[in-house]
């Protein structure tokens, strides 16, 4: 239901964008007569009244048909499925790294709230928060590609590497490094700050005093008793921010010409390839819903209060 509303909303929004596929195709073939353009529009049904277009599209989506890309002349679903793996690889790796390393940073910083590392986390959070993703990405390119020359500039993998071999996988990892680093940097910063605050809060609580009074050492107190409680807000924010990280992925993919959904989305917008854009938006909405379910699951694993509240 929610998905349908998203579909309708996207359709309306995109119809407001000036220019269409006819303009693009005409532009690419160096100009076309009005007749040819009208012909293109008729082929794609763009000459029909708006509400008919909308109804036709929604009807197809309900049947699982996302239409055909104007530009590639391929079914949109096929197009997206071909591009989704690199994006998920990028986004999930970046998010998991940001959560793990961010939490670890936060925990270490919370053990000495006035220590050097704690200040480092504060600065990192400020910089990471203030720096736009594309800026971080360019900075990393300048450092690793131009100056150190140890990282590839763009793409998913070197096209000469035979697919499926160990070298191929390593090469993907090599290509993945900079995009992941750029994308995870903002989240790493905010999660370490969040984890630090959350840990400090938890470390001051009564049950931590109880744990110490039982004779537990600081390692057990921190990693067993405190961390599991402190990670709850991190899960909440990570779940909420997942859609946000997708928009970050568009930028990062474009900068590194990573062959994922983000690049496809960016190019499709420039080309006026409405069915593809609509398809990508539809998929993103679905992914966000799935992620919400996963977040819920993670909650249940960590927090027994939620388990019993929802089962009751």
């Amino acid at each position, binding site marked *: 239901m929610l998905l349908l509303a998203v579909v309708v909303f996207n359709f309306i929004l995109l119809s407001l964008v000036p220019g269409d596929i006819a303009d693009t195709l005409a532009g690419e073939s160096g100009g076309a007569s009005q007749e040819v353009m009208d012909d293109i529009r008729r082929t794609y049904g763009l000459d029909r009244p708006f509400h008919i277009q909308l109804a036709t599209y929604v009807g197809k989506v309900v049947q699982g048909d996302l239409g055909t890309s104007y530009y590639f002349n391929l079914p949109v679903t096929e197009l997206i499925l071909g591009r989704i793996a690199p994006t998920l690889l990028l986004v999930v790796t970046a998010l998991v790294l940001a959560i793990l390393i961010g939490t670890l940073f936060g925990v270490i910083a919370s053990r000495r709230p006035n220590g050097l590392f704690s200040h480092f986390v504060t600065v990192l959070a400020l910089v990471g928060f203030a720096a736009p993703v594309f800026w971080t990405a360019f900075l990393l390119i300048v450092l690793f590609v131009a100056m150190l020359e140890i990282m590839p500039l763009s793409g998913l993998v070197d096209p000469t590497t035979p697919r499926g071999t160990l070298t191929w996988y390593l090469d993907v990892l090599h290509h993945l490094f900079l995009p992941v680093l750029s994308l995870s940097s903002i989240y790493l910063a905010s999660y370490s700050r969040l984890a630090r605050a959350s840990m400090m809060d938890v470390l001051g609580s009564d049950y931590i005093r109880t744990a110490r009074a039982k004779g*537990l050492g600081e390692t057990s107190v921190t990693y067993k008793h405190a961390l599991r409680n402190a990670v709850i807000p991190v899960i909440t924010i990570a779940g909420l921010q997942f859609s946000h990280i997708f928009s970050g992925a568009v930028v990062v993919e474009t900068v590194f010409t990573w062959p994922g959904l983000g690049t496809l989305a960016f190019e499709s917008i420039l080309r006026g390839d409405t069915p593809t854009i609509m398809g990508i938006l539809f998929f993103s909405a679905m992914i966000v819903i799935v992620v919400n379910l996963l977040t819920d699951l993670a909650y249940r694993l960590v927090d027994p209060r939620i388990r019993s509240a929802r089962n009751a």
Partner: protein
Amino acid sequence: MDAAAPLLEVEDLEVEFRTRHGTARVLDGVALSLQPGRTLGIVGESGCGKSMTALSIMRLVPVPPGRIGAGAVRLKGEDLLQASEKRMREVRGKDISMIFQEPMTSLNPVYSIGDQIAETVRLHEGLSRRDSLDRAIEMLKAVHIPAAERRVREFPHQMSGGMRQRVMIAMALACRPSVLIADEPTTALDVTVQAQVFDLLKEMQEKTGTAIILISHDMGAIAEMADRVMVMYAGRIVEEAATDEILENPRHPYTRGLIACVPHMEEEPPPERGALTEIPGVVPALTDLGSGCSFAPRCDHATDLCRSRAPRPFAVGADHRAACWLYDEAGAA
């Protein structure tokens, strides 16, 4: 009573806290002695250093901002203030256990109560997972939690405050400690539950022979439970005696005030007062205690001497001491 060697002995304990308003001497010359199997009550208004005394014995004073400046805490002769942190971890939960004022927040919300009790047993006695869970069930039964086999798997949020305090008691006594420190164990509970928890503490003491330090701001509770009472004010002990002696014959004006606050303990409440009285005034800020008696500003008997010099404890009866110039026989002459 003094004949037996004390189980726990605190001498001349001094604790300071560095705060924004200067250094606060939170404990000053606190001393106590606890016999095996007996109950010592510590009473005083909020903020007078009762919890800090308990935390110092456990060596759990937050450092910094706190600092244990001087003194000794001897458990069966061993000075815990000189012990290594590793040794302290053995002592905590095994020789000396502690339960706290807030049963609602003192248990970890994400672990089952069985796991939390079993953890202590595993830590100190090296039992297997299974055996330690069996011990947890046994302890839950001992503190009269119904359906212990089922409840052992429940989480703190599934239990009432009274039940949680029972769990805390079960956890604290699981390794049969020789000392149990109960820091206002019933303050957060309602009256009928309070009585049940006190009954349970007494029962467990009879069963296990543990000595108890019972901290409370309620003289009534102390009167029921304790063999001996220590009255604290602004980080010092102002009076100390056997419970009956102190109730019948309170000497320090502050102690008298505290006893007057407990309605049912007076045979006949003075007609001009309500059922419950309060000592007028508030506990002074610990950062700017003058050189005089810290109770002087609130005391009806205060003299110039009280305002200029702090009294030391004077013997005012058999095993009864009060830190008040009223009882300085030498000085009065």
